[in-house]
């Protein structure tokens, strides 16, 4: 049997059936969480987002009770914005690229619990954006006059730096990191990798020392415990542990410069 006809067969078998979603819900930030199940009519090529949309159209749980539609965040729908990150069958990932056909049923959805829960599947990822501000994850080009074109970047460097630029601040690496927790102030792998990215940029390197000093301080690079979960779960395949190891080296050199050297950068 060809793949196409098998897919058609599967499709027709499931056409009339429903998909069950078990959602961990929470009415507000300080409310208790509870589980609610929903059956949504199966459609071909559904993803978790379209299943949630189906529930929103008809918010009736499996007990037949009408309930409030579960809340979630979404934006780009093509895994580049990071907004729809949630726990899907126990794995942190984006709901937009979680295809119903490829998921074990019933599908369990829960919020990422590393972050404060706003409501249902909506979490507050502010800590990540705060960390990006702390490490100055940008290139300083603003000023009162036109600075002109910046220096060129070698293609060989551009290649690996581009991989780091794929980070969408989705929070999956923080969710998987055992050192990102309420007992520690570790900023997590994503912002650290951004330090490597912006320090690699010829103009971004103007803030290199400042960034390194920031991650040598509280909640910085020393928070890493080498569990390497981050690199395993990153949906964009960013070499986060390589970034951290390279920054381990860069901060070491920086600390020697601070201690023994004189020329500031």
């Amino acid at each position, binding site marked *: 049997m060809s793949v196409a006809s098998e897919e058609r067969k599967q499709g027709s078998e499931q056409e009339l059936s429903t998909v069950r979603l078990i959602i961990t819900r929470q009415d507000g930030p300080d409310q208790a969480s509870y589980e609610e199940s929903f059956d949504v009519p199966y459609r071909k090529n559904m993803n978790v987002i379209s299943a949630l949309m189906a529930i929103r159209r008809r918010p009736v749980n499996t007990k037949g009770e009408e309930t409030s539609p579960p809340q979630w965040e979404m934006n780009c729908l093509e895994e580049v914005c990071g907004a729809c990150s949630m726990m899907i069958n126990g794995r942190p990932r984006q709901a937009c690229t979680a295809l119903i056909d490829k998921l074990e049923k019933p599908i369990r959805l829960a919020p990422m619990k590393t972050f404060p829960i706003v409501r249902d599947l909506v979490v507050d990822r502010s800590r990540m954006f705060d960390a990006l501000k702390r490490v100055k994850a940008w290139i300083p080009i603003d000023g009162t006059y036109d600075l002109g074109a910046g220096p060129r970047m070698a293609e060989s460097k551009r290649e690996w730096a581009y991989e780091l630029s794929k980070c969408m601040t989705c929070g999956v690496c923080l969710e998987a990191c055992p050192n990102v927790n309420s007992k520690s102030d570790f900023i997590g792998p994503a912002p650290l990798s951004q330090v490597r990215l912006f320090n690699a940029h010829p103009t971004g390197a103007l803030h290199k020392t400042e960034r390194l000093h920031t991650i040598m301080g509280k909640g910085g690079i020393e928070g890493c415990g080498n569990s390497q979960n981050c690199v395993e779960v990153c949906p964009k395949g960013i070499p986060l542990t390589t970034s951290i*190891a390279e920054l381990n080296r860069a901060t070491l050199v920086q600390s020697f410069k601070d201690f023994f050297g004189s020329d500031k950068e």
Partner: protein
Amino acid sequence: MADNDFARHRWHSLLGVVPVGLFLIVHLTVNYQATDGPGAFNQAASFMESLPFLLFLEVILIYLPILFHGIYGIFIAFTATSNVGRFGFFRNWMYLLQRISGLFLVIFIAWHVWETRIAMALGTALSYDMMANIFSNSWMVVFYIAGVLAAVFHFSNGLWSFCVHWGILATPRAQKIGTYATAVIFVLLGYVGISAVFAFI
């Protein structure tokens, strides 16, 4: 540097290898002399005891580094969480075992130092017979085997972490080679350590 998180962590990492890790190798090697019989072990032990400035060397090269490493290590272990149930990756298990073995070693080493070094200071001669007496209790044999394995694991895996932490092993390939190399160290040192334990029974 506004606060010393960075320096503390790097010292913790460095002291774990030099001198504490090196001392572990010397210690297990001296123990291994017991496989040549009581005489060989007693000779090796008395050589160590005969070193000049012994107490000074012990304090500077062993007691202070291991105390710092242990106390800061307890802090590291208790600010960690475990999620191997959700993320059962190899390195995540190593992360967990490193912390568990470290905490166990705090207990084991405290007991071991009390039973041997402090007992020696209080008058019991440090010799083959001292260990043979301790191992007349089979629970102690189990405790010591666990202690030796925990120490060797903690050192081998810690050596890997040290190399990552100091920016020596950066790429996935380098880190993988490092994993194999430290696994070999674990097996070899483990063999030396466990053979020594059985030499006293």
